[in-house]
């Protein structure tokens, strides 16, 4: 691509690309986000391409591998334009049929359509599906319209308009004011005002100034940042460019998890292409503004999502946080003023500049503006990424968008905010989701993981799971976190093994408070949340483990036994064949039994029994 030297040149290039595109030309978009790729969608893309060659349709039909569409549950996803037909669970061999039937003849292939589980109606278009209908996909929605490796695609949908607007005479102070007015708060966990952060960094003495995009998305069960980086990397660059201009920075870093190879690849390509076009580099669009971006891959440490630890990691040290009596905005990377924001927060910036702070403010609740992307996962029918306006209720997310709990089981809790968050019980399902409301019920926005749990999930086990995670990921620098989380884990482990004592619950509670008060960084400061919130809402489950030595959900190995229900057993012998220790035995067509002395509780018989004859108690 030829370098553009002025905003005018970029504008005309945009026009040129727009005009060269025929909106009526058939286009097959295949979702190639990590979710769909694991279903094999790359193969599907290849099949479409070779099929187009085979049928001499090159130049007449376009094939686009796009970023994540969000509805991971139903992947691989394919959208056929201009009709906007939505196909799901597309087989790898369906390419030929789709081209012949749908693209060339306009025929709908019934079996690939989404069926509404309630009405049993077949749905033709993406935006009519309940999963999408209740969403507001401002930041995430563009993913489906572009090939993440194509800068042209981004320009064609109006990309870099916000940058042009800013460089065409918006004063840095005015930009910061706009972001402040919009009320955009950090999407990575802290929820701090982005505008205030920018202002502090701009005003801080010292040069150079750095900006950082925090893409060290370590929360288990959250993957929206990855999907944005993979699916629409240019929007993040645009956000960073605007931020750098407003703050007065000439160097940016993107710190991305090495476990996200596709995100690393796509953002690297995006940076290279932006450089080629002259959007990154010296004297950008003739404005005199210099800015470039470096990509740093993380080393796989959860704590590096904490900003001071992240800075240490970029500097080539172990990612240990420091006390924040001086904020990074004053002394951050290499002791220079540094502004760190999370991926999703950066992606919101072009939107605000394009559409204005007042428009942005109109979405959301009093103190939480705009939308938030949540990863809706766990025991839920429609797993995927959902972008919703702040203020939507949990019930709407879980039932209307998420489609409820699989196999008709009972909802128990939703865990929001990852290892720093908390479990929210059914009684709070009508809670309006925003930063403050979540904190009030003992959870937090965090990075936006929403893990749904049903009656077969043990809350003590979940709390223990998070403690184990945090114990492993604690950097070990400060004592309350290093030792406190460890001790709490030991106590919880004892409880799940049936050796809990009644005073344990009290001990956990005061320890939790001590860890929160005494820890150096956000990891320790929020580490007890999963325990304290489950203790708050599911105390009876803890008590069942301690007093009755019973795990009501049937999860904790030491407290359960597998037995065979003689009424239901048909003597099919599957359990006997599969049992690794020969504990399950019996003759053909006769009721089987499990020898409790031999049983190692591996769960194999329970899983394989087709007649639900194996019971856990």
């Amino acid at each position, binding site marked *: 691509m030829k370098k553009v030297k002025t905003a005018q040149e970029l504008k005309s290039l945009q026009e040129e690309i727009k005009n060269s595109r025929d909106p009526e030309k058939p286009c097959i978009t295949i979702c190639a986000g990590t979710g769909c790729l694991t279903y094999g969608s790359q193969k599907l893309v290849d099949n479409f391409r070779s099929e187009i060659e085979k049928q001499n349709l090159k130049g007449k039909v376009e094939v686009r591998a796009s970023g994540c569409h969000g509805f991971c549950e139903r992947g691989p996803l394919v959208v056929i334009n201009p009709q906007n037909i939505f196909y799901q669970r597309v087989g790898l061999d369906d390419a030929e049929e789709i081209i012949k039937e749908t693209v060339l003849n306009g025929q709908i292939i019934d079996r690939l359509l989404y069926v509404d589980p309630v009405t049993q109606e077949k749905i033709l278009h993406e935006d009519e599906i309940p999963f999408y209908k209740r969403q507001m996909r401002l930041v995430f929605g563009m993913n489906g319209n572009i090939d993440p490796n194509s800068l042209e695609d981004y320009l064609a949908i109006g990309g870099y308009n916000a940058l042009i607007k800013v460089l065409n005479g918006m004063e840095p102070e005015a930009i910061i004011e706009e972001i402040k007015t919009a009320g955009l708060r950090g999407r990575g966990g802290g929820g701090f005002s982005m505008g205030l952060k920018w202002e502090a960094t701009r005003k801080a003495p010292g040069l150079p100034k750095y900006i950082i995009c925090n893409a060290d998305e370590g929360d288990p069960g959250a993957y929206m940042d990855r999907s944005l980086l993979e699916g629409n990397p240019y929007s993040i660059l645009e956000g960073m460019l605007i931020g750098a201009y407003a703050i007065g920075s000439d160097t940016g870093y993107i710190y991305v998890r090495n476990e996200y190879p596709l995100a690393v690849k796509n953002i690297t390509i995006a940076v290279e292409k932006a450089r080629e076009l002259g959007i990154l580099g010296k004297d950008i669009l003739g404005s005199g503004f210099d800015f470039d971006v470096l990509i740093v891959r993380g080393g796989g440490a959860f704590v590096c999502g904490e900003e001071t630890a992240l800075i240490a990691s970029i500097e*080539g040290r172990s990612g240990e946080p420091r006390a924040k009596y001086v904020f990074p905005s004053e002394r951050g990377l290499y002791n220079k003023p540094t502004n760190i924001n999370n991926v999703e927060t950066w992606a919101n910036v072009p939107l605000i500049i394009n559409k204005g702070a007042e428009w942005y403010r109109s979405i959301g609740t009093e103190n939480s503006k705009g939308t938030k992307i949540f990863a809706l996962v766990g025991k839920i029918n429609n797993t995927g990424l959902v972008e919703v306006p702040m203020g939507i209720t949990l019930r709407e997310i879980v039932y209307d968008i998420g489609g409820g709990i699989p196999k008709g089981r009972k909802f128990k809790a939703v865990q929001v905010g990852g290892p720093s968050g908390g479990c929210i019980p059914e009684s709070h399902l009508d809670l309006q989701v925003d930063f403050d409301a979540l904190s009030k019920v003992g959870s937090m926005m965090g990075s936006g993981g929403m893990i749904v749990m049903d009656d077969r999930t043990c809350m003590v086990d979940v709390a223990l799971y998070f403690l184990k995670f945090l114990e492993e990921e604690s950097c070990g620098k400060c004592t309350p976190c290093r030792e406190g989380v460890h001790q709490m884990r030991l106590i919880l482990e004892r409880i799940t093994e049936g050796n809990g004592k009644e005073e344990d619950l009290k001990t956990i509670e005061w320890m939790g408070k001590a860890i929160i008060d005494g820890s150096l960084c956000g990891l320790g400061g929020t580490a007890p949340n999963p325990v304290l919130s489950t203790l708050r809402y599911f105390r009876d489950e803890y008590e069942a483990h301690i007093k009755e030595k019973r795990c009501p959900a049937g999860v904790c190995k030491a407290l359960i036994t597998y037995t065979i229900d003689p009424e239901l057993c048909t003597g099919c012998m599957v359990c006997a064949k599969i049992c690794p220790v020969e504990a399950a035995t019996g003759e053909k067509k006769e009721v089987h039994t499990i020898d409790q002395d031999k049983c190692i509780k591996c769960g194999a018989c329970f899983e394989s029994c087709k007649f639900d004859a194996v019971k856990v108690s």
Partner: protein
Amino acid sequence: MKTRVKKIIDKYHNDKGFLVPILQDVQKEYNYLNREALNLVSAFLEVPISQLYELGTFYKAFSLKPRGRHEMKLCTGTACHVRGVPLMKDNIERILQIQAGETTPDLEFTFETVNCLGACALGPILVVDGEYHGNLSISKTNRILKKLGKKVKIDEES
């Protein structure tokens, strides 16, 4: 080895600020951080070997021991956890006779857990040599291990 390590360091313009990515590349090259390579990095960049070991032990991505021929990564993210991944972890550990994070003595298998692969719709997930196996179950882990040459009882019909 000298030229291979030098090549990696050159890629980062001898910049000590890129220690983590340099070690990532070294690990990719040799499949683990071996002593010799670390000595070379230390000499080239003039950083103490202790600092490299600090990084090597702090970050999960690094391994100071040789890794197995087959790499198995089991996602233990929260979504996979609530869908029953602990049982599958126990099963794999039992069959391979190692704990997660270890390599079998014959260097055939390295079995690790990862925090989240971000493909939660398919959970539980096991990645074997880069290939994703979604909607994992105990019997699926059995079949996968059997294919890779382990002796496992499976139910042929299912």
